[in-house]
């Protein structure tokens, strides 16, 4: 539609909450324009009758609301009084898990935002948050993926953990402590994509199930990501492949971002991922 034609459309009221024209207004305006241009032709009457009907049918097919934004929740575990695990820091010093997860969350948020993914974080500073509050933030975000970030010195590579709740059908009223049960199937699919991306990046991955209070209360595809040293336990932070190695952290973060991009693509193809409440 040209600008000159658009000027003929009804003008929305000043101060209206939305600046979009409703479908009905658009149809009315388009019909008036057609009638003015072709008033001398004999089929004007028929056109004036049928064109609105055709236009309404066409506009009814268009979504009335914009497509939901792809949002990822990043939960930097621990914080405040809860320091979490003690990690081997540079030069033999000790780094706290709460600091590592916050730093990793910021790094991952930057990567995801640069790729056009909306990010909601549960904390941006060293504050104490209990598991219920974290789950509340995640559930209010209506996110397509929720990652709970942890770090540990045991094991090696990246550990992906899913809720150990048995899968259940989705219900209207969901028990808070077992809300994740209806999302287990999607969480498994999300973990699979993260696993593929991390493997592609050359990072060792182990997948397991655990009883983690935060995840069990989330109503979104949720995976706990525990970053461990690339080599066997005991490698120090500053060493290559250690948990504090910036290159290693960047490698893991890039791989997770790539996995979430793939997850976003799969979300556009609903047939590829199970719906919530579906048994795996």
């Amino acid at each position, binding site marked *: 539609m040209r600008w000159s034609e658009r000027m003929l459309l009804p003008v929305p009221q000043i101060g209206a909450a939305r600046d979009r024209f409703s479908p009905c207004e658009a149809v009315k305006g388009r019909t008036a324009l057609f009638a003015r241009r072709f008033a001398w032709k004999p089929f004007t009457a028929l056109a004036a009758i049928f064109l609105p009907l055709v236009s309404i049918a066409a506009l009814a097919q268009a979504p009335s609301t914009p497509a939901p934004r792809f949002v990822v929740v990043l939960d930097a575990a621990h914080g405040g009084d809860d320091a979490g695990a*003690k990690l081997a820091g540079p030069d033999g010093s000790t780094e706290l898990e709460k600091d590592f997860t916050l730093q990793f969350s910021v790094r991952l948020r930057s990567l995801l935002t640069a790729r056009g993914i909306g990010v909601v974080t549960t904390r941006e500073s060293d504050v104490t948050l209990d598991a219920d509050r974290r789950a509340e933030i995640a559930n209010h975000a209506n996110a397509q993926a929720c990652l709970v970030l942890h770090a*540990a*010195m*045991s*094991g090696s590579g990246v550990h992906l953990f899913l809720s*150990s709740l048995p899968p259940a059908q989705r219900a209207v009223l969901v028990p808070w402590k077992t809300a994740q049960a209806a999302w287990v199937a999607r969480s498994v699919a999300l973990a699979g994509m993260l696993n593929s991306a991390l493997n592609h990046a050359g990072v060792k991955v*182990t*997948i397991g199930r*655990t009883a*983690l209070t935060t995840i069990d209360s989330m109503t979104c595809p949720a995976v706990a990501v525990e970053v461990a040293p690339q080599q066997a336990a005991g490698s120090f932070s500053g060493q290559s492949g250690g948990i504090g190695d910036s290159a290693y952290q960047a490698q893991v973060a890039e791989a997770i971002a790539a996995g979430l991009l793939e997850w976003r693509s799969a979300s556009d193809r609903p047939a590829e991922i199970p719906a919530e409440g579906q048994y795996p």
Partner: protein
Amino acid sequence: MIPRYQTVIFVILLAASIVMGAVLWHLLDRAHQRLLAGEDSAPTRAPEVAPVEQATLMAADDSDDSLETRVLSLPLPAEPGARARAVLGRLLDLYAAPGAAHPVPGGAQGIVDVFLLPAKNGTDAEPGAGGGSPSPSGQSLAVVNLTAAFANGHPSGIETETLTILSICATLHANLPQVAEVRFLVDGLPRATLAGHADLTRTYLTSESTGTAGGDQP
């Protein structure tokens, strides 16, 4: 010249000393007789040593997030609770040994008690009745009471805490098949997490812990 009153006092004190000495001798003799009589009631047999049996330990391995089956010969008591405690103590001793695949300090001292109760889903089990014996349905709930020192000294992390819990559950099920559910206490009280991650407030099903906790991905 000794005054008369001093002579009288001396005689009285001498008599009192003789009487007191006789009383003390008598009391000593009675105490000796009582001691000899007490020895008769002491056990004359040495305590029985539990027979050595095969025990299956599901030992965790941090390198691949797996539970490895180990069969050891251990003296195992017949009473189920004591048997469970002995097996779990040996499992924690493995974790406390130098070079363990799943290092956890504390050892067998980390477990205070293990109680076996009828499981909630037992058919006709009376709650609280028959402690230490399984319910008629054969399902038992094991309550593992850990020490605070063990929980506080446990390495923090999802993987390591989950492996410890799953290995305890799997070991209990391997040696006491009637154990279907496991709950954890720390110094007799509920605790939110083992060391900041794994949930200790829920009831674990031993059927979930069989096999491996996770697995390496190619």
